[in-house]
């Protein structure tokens, strides 16, 4: 049979061995529609067939966890009866094809996942990766940046969920394959958590927008490498409608508030197919769908198109017995369709009926249990070589003052204001720490004294050179960002963006990334509660660096005690947790100044990391520290400059060390935190650091309108205005 692939199998692009497995599970040949149901449900995006065995390594339990991976979003307890639901999701390929709508629908999709848990969305974050801004490729990069930012703004602003944070990196390896991941956080009463469940004989309602031919086959599309062919797939682009999205959200949450529904599910990737079949499977039941009842936007849609459509702004609601009419009335008030399109049946099959005929009938477990693959990974030897490169002979730059300005003006370190100014980051009036003011955003929980801190992070350079270390850093840094504003990290969500797992190098990077995350999770005591996997970010001539976007949510029990990143009070002392000496390997400095991406990223000491975070939280929690900032890309000098900017307040710093001046100023190292403290509290603060067994140094004092750094052999000085000028400009040119 090898040579003679059935034409249908060839058309659907299903591997022969998977086709055989389908025939075995069905006990017969599938018809065309059934085959496509398998195709989308067995795509990586829906089935996790390459990643599931690896994801099992991630710790997913903890005292705060109310819902771990496996539902539409994870949920953690934040006390006083409240909980937060959160998840990250990728929309990379749609954004590459049509940046505005790709990003917009990515935001819409992740919001619906949060709503499906019964949570009111209170914050959005996003994590973006683009190629080069300079050179001939710059035009396309700018086009993508503008489009993606516009799409995020368009959807998030209109639906009324504040976009409070995110991160952006530019790296040549994303030139052909930008990444757009969106994270949403929602608030719910812990006892109102909803799941994707339904009981026997219940009608299943379709609520929201009508179904059109949008994004047909999108889930399968997302799991394919981008190719010339993507061009021809363009007509299927999905368009986001935040207005309908808002109405759908309000109907769903109001239905939950009035206790009208027993189960909720969003319609995301693979639309009706995945939402209904997965809900039936999780409920241990079957479901019968009547396609004639599905609200349609276009005429003449066939069953295949209806089943694969990824029209946006649709939800699945299962009313409680006797509440059907109430649900219909509620939806009508908002002008939405609410139609019973399916009902739960005892026989565990997914049955699709059109015009009185059964057009597909497949066991639900067969769709849910795609085969999984465990493969052999092998590192790309070129990367090992780059890592092994000796950096000892690196020349010292002549003018270190100029180097800092160049770093501040590098696309990866410069001001993000031109981006976040386009996002409404305050709607909802909960944003206590707005973008640009802190390492993480803080949102208050109305009616309590509590707040949550959120941040998403990942350093592609670290991950490219050493995927395992990169993943560890991503989690450590996201958690550190939450800790330095005063939040205690509770759990995280991870968006794993990698290359093709069917290649040895792609699989190596995926498995190393997950191994690194697992190790850091265990060491920091942080469980994963949700996430997303986007593989096949690879083409004939490129593969993205493995990019684990880690979103951490933390708790501030008392919002009075929090910190922001800017220097606020002249006279306060500047203290560094950790050593002033940084590493040059894999640093932003090495790339910007020497054009090198080489060496090994610093090795994290996770035990020290945990202690450093605990110490800064303690200092903030006692009310002694109001300004704290982690030392990340660009090293100590960049971190100090960043602290000068928010309130235009300078500092005088003295660094005593015999290390290379560039390593001191711009070298990177994990677990480092800068903070300021009043002279009168210094001794007590130092005692806390000693109790936690942390190396530390008192570096200097806040004040004036200049940043001065005294080194053993030289004195460096910048006006804060000059720092700001360098830092402000680069993204303004992209987003005027």
């Amino acid at each position, binding site marked *: 049979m090898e040579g003679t692939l059935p034409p249908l199998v060839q058309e659907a692009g299903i591997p022969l061995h998977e086709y055989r497995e389908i025939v075995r599970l069905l006990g017969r040949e599938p018809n065309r529609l059934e085959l496509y149901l398998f195709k989308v449900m067995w795509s990586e995006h829906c089935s996790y067939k390459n990643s599931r065995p690896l994801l099992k390594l991630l710790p997913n339990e903890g005292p705060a966890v109310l819902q771990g991976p496996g539902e539409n979003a994870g949920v953690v307890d934040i006390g006083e009866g409240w909980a937060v639901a959160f998840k990250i999701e990728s929309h990379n390929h749609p954004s590459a094809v049509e940046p505005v709508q790709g990003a917009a629908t990515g935001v819409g999709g992740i919001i619906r996942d949060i709503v499906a848990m019964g949570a009111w969305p209170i914050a959005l974050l996003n994590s973006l990766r683009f190629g080069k801004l300079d050179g001939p490729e710059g035009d396309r990069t700018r086009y993508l940046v503008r489009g993606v930012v516009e799409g995020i703004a368009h959807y998030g602003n209109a639906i009324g969920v504040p976009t409070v944070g995110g991160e952006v990196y530019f790296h040549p390896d994303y030139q052909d394959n930008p990444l757009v991941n969106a994270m949403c956080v929602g608030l719910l009463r812990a006892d109102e958590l909803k799941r994707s469940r339904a009981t026997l004989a219940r009608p299943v309602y379709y609520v929201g927008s009508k179904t059109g031919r949008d994004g047909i086959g999108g889930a399968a599309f997302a799991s394919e490498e981008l190719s010339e062919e993507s061009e021809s797939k363009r007509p299927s682009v999905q368009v*986001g409608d935040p207005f309908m999205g808002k109405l759908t959200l309000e109907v769903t949450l109001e239905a939950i508030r009035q206790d009208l529904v027993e189960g909720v599910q969003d319609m995301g990737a693979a639309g009706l197919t995945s939402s209904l079949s997965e809900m039936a499977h999780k409920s241990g039941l079957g479901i019968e769908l009547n396609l004639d009842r599905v609200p349609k936007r276009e005429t003449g849609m066939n069953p295949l198109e209806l089943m694969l459509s990824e029209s946006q702004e649709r939800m699945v609601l299962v009313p409680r017995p006797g509440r059907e009419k109430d649900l219909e009335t509620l939806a009508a008030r908002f002008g939405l369709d609410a139609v019973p399109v399916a009902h739960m049946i005892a026989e565990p099959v997914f049955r699709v009926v059109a015009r009185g005929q059964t057009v597909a009938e497949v066991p639900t477990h067969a769709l849910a249990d795609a085969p999984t693959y465990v493969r052999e990974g092998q590192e790309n030897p070129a990367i090992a070589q780059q890592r092994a490169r000796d950096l000892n002979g690196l020349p010292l730059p002549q003018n270190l003052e100029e180097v800092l300005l160049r770093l501040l003006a590098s696309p990866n370190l410069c001001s993000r204001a031109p981006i976040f100014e386009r996002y409404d980051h305050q709607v909802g009036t909960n944003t206590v720490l707005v973008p640009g003011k802190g390492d993480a955003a803080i949102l208050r929980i109305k009616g309590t004294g509590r707040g949550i801190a959120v941040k998403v992070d990942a350093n592609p350079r670290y991950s490219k050179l050493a995927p395992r270390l990169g993943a560890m850093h991503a989690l450590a840094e996201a958690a550190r960002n939450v800790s330095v504003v005063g939040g205690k990290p509770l759990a995280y969500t991870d968006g794993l963006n990698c290359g093709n797992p069917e290649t040895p190098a792609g699989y190596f990077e995926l498995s190393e990334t997950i191994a690194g995350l697992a190790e850091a999770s265990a060491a920091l005591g942080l469980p994963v509660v949700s996430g997303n996997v986007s593989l096949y970010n690879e083409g004939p001539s490129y593969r993205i660096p493995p990019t684990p976007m880690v979103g951490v949510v933390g708790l501030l029990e008392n919002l009075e005690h929090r910190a922001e990143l800017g220097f606020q009070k002249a006279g306060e002392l500047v203290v560094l947790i950790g050593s002033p000496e940084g590493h040059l390997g894999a640093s932003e400095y090495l790339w910007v100044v020497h054009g090198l991406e080489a060496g090994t990223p610093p090795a994290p000491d996770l035990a020290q990391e945990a202690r450093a975070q605990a110490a800064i939280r303690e200092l903030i929690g006692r009310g002694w520290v109001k300004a704290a900032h982690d030392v990340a890309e660009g090293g100590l000098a960049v971190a100090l400059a960043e602290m000068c900017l928010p309130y235009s307040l300078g500092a005088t710093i003295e660094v005593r060390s015999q290390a290379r001046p560039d390593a001191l100023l711009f070298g990177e190292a994990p677990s480092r935190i800068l903070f300021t403290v009043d002279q009168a509290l210094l001794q007590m603060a130092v005692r806390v650091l000693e109790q936690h067994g942390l190396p530390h140094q008192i570096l200097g004092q806040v004040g004036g309108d200049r940043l001065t750094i005294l080194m053993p052999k030289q004195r460096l000085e910048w006006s804060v205005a000059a720092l700001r000028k360098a830092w402000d400009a680069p993204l303004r040119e992209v987003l005027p």
Partner: protein
Amino acid sequence: MKYHITLLIELKDGILDPQGRAVEGVLQGLQFKAQNVRVGRVLEMEVEAGSEADASAMAHNIGKALANPVMEVFVVEAVKELA
């Protein structure tokens, strides 16, 4: 010679038009029984060209440059010589 160009840029058929949908809903509420409402953009501009044919060709190229081929189509609605 100077020409005035009118160019329409509209969503392709089958692509969801949220604006059109919202306008349709409101018009129906006002008892206008409008259906299939679609909202696009109209661009008016002036160009220099040697002949009307040249101006049309230019209008065509401008439409091509400005419409997003992923979702939009364009129509050269009018090309008129200016006094």
